[in-house]
């Protein structure tokens, strides 16, 4: 094979931009840079990471910082206001509020991340398949999504909580059983637009299988949408989970969660306000942070949508 002559016209172009004063910027690199420049978004993201780290390291934390165990009763120290012994006070059974908040975070954040994981996995698979193949598969699965999304979620949650006694895993599955529908729609829409582009046909023309096309070529192109959906989803799910716990349909006492700590606190609201404030504020801050972070992610991945 002889060398094909390089056309002279393009040679100067190469010395100008090819030899690289500027390194190759991938989409991911650029997005990451935009995200890093968003100070509020980064602060929110870091806050979530810290909360997650504290929750993960809960046993260490309670041993060395609060010195209490989440389920140990101390009937001599009930309704202690925040102070030296108990940083955030104690509840009606003398359990340390901070310790319970940390353990509750384990449950609440765990459920939130697990739910996002399940609904993204399921929703993405369904969205990719329906969007790519269309036809009867699309009709059947998308009608199923319509059905799922048209059942009032709260009734579904109530029913399922009665049928399956909720622990963190089942609760995540219960919430995800509704959440995947929205993800499927989102992904399907994105796939419908991406698959019209020529590179899909070009990839088919080199003999790629459908699976390769979907996983290697379509999925990376819908990933930004997924990341945005995931980061915005965490906040929503924390709220849903807290609501279910509050109604007694979620995580059951004595296991602590931010939601069911509020349930208890409600009875003692006028008596010991800190029992309401601390879990409430924690939920508020976490949801706010995850929404801010989600928005930052969206701005970073899709600068056209930038709101400010």
């Amino acid at each position, binding site marked *: *094979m*002889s*060398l*094909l*002559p*390089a*056309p002279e*016209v*393009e*040679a100067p*172009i*190469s*010395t100008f*931009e*090819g*030899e*690289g004063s500027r390194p*190759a*910027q*991938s*989409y991911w690199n650029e997005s990451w840079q935009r995200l890093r420049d968003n100070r509020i978004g980064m602060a929110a993201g870091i806050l979530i990471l810290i909360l997650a780290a504290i929750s993960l390291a809960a046993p260490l934390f309670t041993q060395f910082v609060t010195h209490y165990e989440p389920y140990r009763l101390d009937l001599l120290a009930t309704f202690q206001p925040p102070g030296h012994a108990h940083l955030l006070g104690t509840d009606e059974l003398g359990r340390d509020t901070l310790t319970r908040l940390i353990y509750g975070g384990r449950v609440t954040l765990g459920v939130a991340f697990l739910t996002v994981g399940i609904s993204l996995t399921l929703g993405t698979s369904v969205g990719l398949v329906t969007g790519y193949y269309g036809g009867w598969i699309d009709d059947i699965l998308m009608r199923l999504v319509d059905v799922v999304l048209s059942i009032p979620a709260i009734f579904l949650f109530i029913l399922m909580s009665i049928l399956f006694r909720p622990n963190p895993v089942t609760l995540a599955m219960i919430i995800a059983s509704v959440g995947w529908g929205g993800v499927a729609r989102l992904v399907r829409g994105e796939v419908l637009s991406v698959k019209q*582009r*020529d*590179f899909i*046909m*070009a*990839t*088919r*023309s*080199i*003999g*790629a*299988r459908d699976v*390769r096309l979907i996983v290697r*070529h379509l999925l*990376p*192109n819908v990933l930004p949408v997924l990341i945005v959906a995931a980061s915005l989803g965490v906040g929503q799910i924390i709220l849903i989970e807290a609501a279910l716990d509050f109604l007694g349909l979620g995580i059951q006492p004595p296991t602590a969660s931010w939601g069911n700590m509020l349930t208890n606190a409600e009875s003692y609201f006028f008596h010991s306000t800190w029992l309401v404030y601390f879990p409430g504020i924690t939920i508020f801050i976490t949801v706010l942070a995850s929404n801010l972070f989600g928005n930052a992610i969206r701005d970073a991945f899709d600068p056209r949508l930038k709101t400010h």
Partner: protein
Amino acid sequence: MTEALLEVQDLHTVFATKAGNVKAVDGVSFEINPGETLGIVGESGSGKSVTALSVMRLQRPGKIISGKVMFKGRDLTKVSEGEMREIRGQDIAMIFQDPMTSMNPVFRTGWQVAEPVRLHHGWDKTRAMGVAVSMLGKVGIPSPASRARDYPHQFSGGMRQRAMIAMGLTTTPKVLIADEPTTALDVTIQAQILDLLRHVNRDFGTATILITHNLGVVAGMCERVVVMYAGRVVESGPTSDVFAHPKHPYTWALLRSIPRLDAERHEALKPIEGLPPDLIDLPSGCAFHPRCQFKVERCSRDVPVLNRVGETQLAACWVTQSGVELKGA
């Protein structure tokens, strides 16, 4: 003449729509010999691209309803999807019209150029990347090793089309189908890409099917040409003969509608009157007869078949088949 490398016989591809069946390809036949460059010309909607896609069996949602595509003794319309995948990208490669959208934006160019050999030869990343880089160099990408690490958006349109050609060539296919490879590029880049395709044809011995609506490109590139109108082949033959003595009124009119250097001064260009026909409801007889200035009574009644007219050409026209010369004001 050697045995044809790829032979399309009476191919019919239809698209089912609410308004009716669109006969995008309506009985197309042609063949291409090893190492040859064949031009397929026709206006938009004449079925050029669908013919090419049907050869690759990528015509979805269209359906091939009859006809054969003979390649290496097999009928590609009949082989399994698995066998077809083996052929795509390995024996027959394709280049698309718009290089700006025919590369995946999320992968590095080298990765994409290397994809065919990884798929077909099962080569590992390093080995495939080596081939990709050397192929990028061969198609005229300067400093290919560092350019292979770039993303498609860092390439110009011309460079992307070069990369697409490199991608098609990594597996040294027998046939390269170029579907309007220069339409989306500006004129100077067009010339470079055509030059490249000519080199590819010569140096790799790759038979090239060049689909275009640009008669000038055909004249400069192709040994033989197939002229399509409304999903049918109306004329075919050696390019020089077809251009010098068109045997179908459509080709004749097409050639008169473009400027030529050897034309009489002050001679006005003559557009083809009328519009291309509706592919759902073709005119009876010859699809071109409503626009044809040579038509006779039979043209609106019987569909003309492609037959030898003159020494080297085939034409589907009752008028020229009866010996009438195409001349006119």
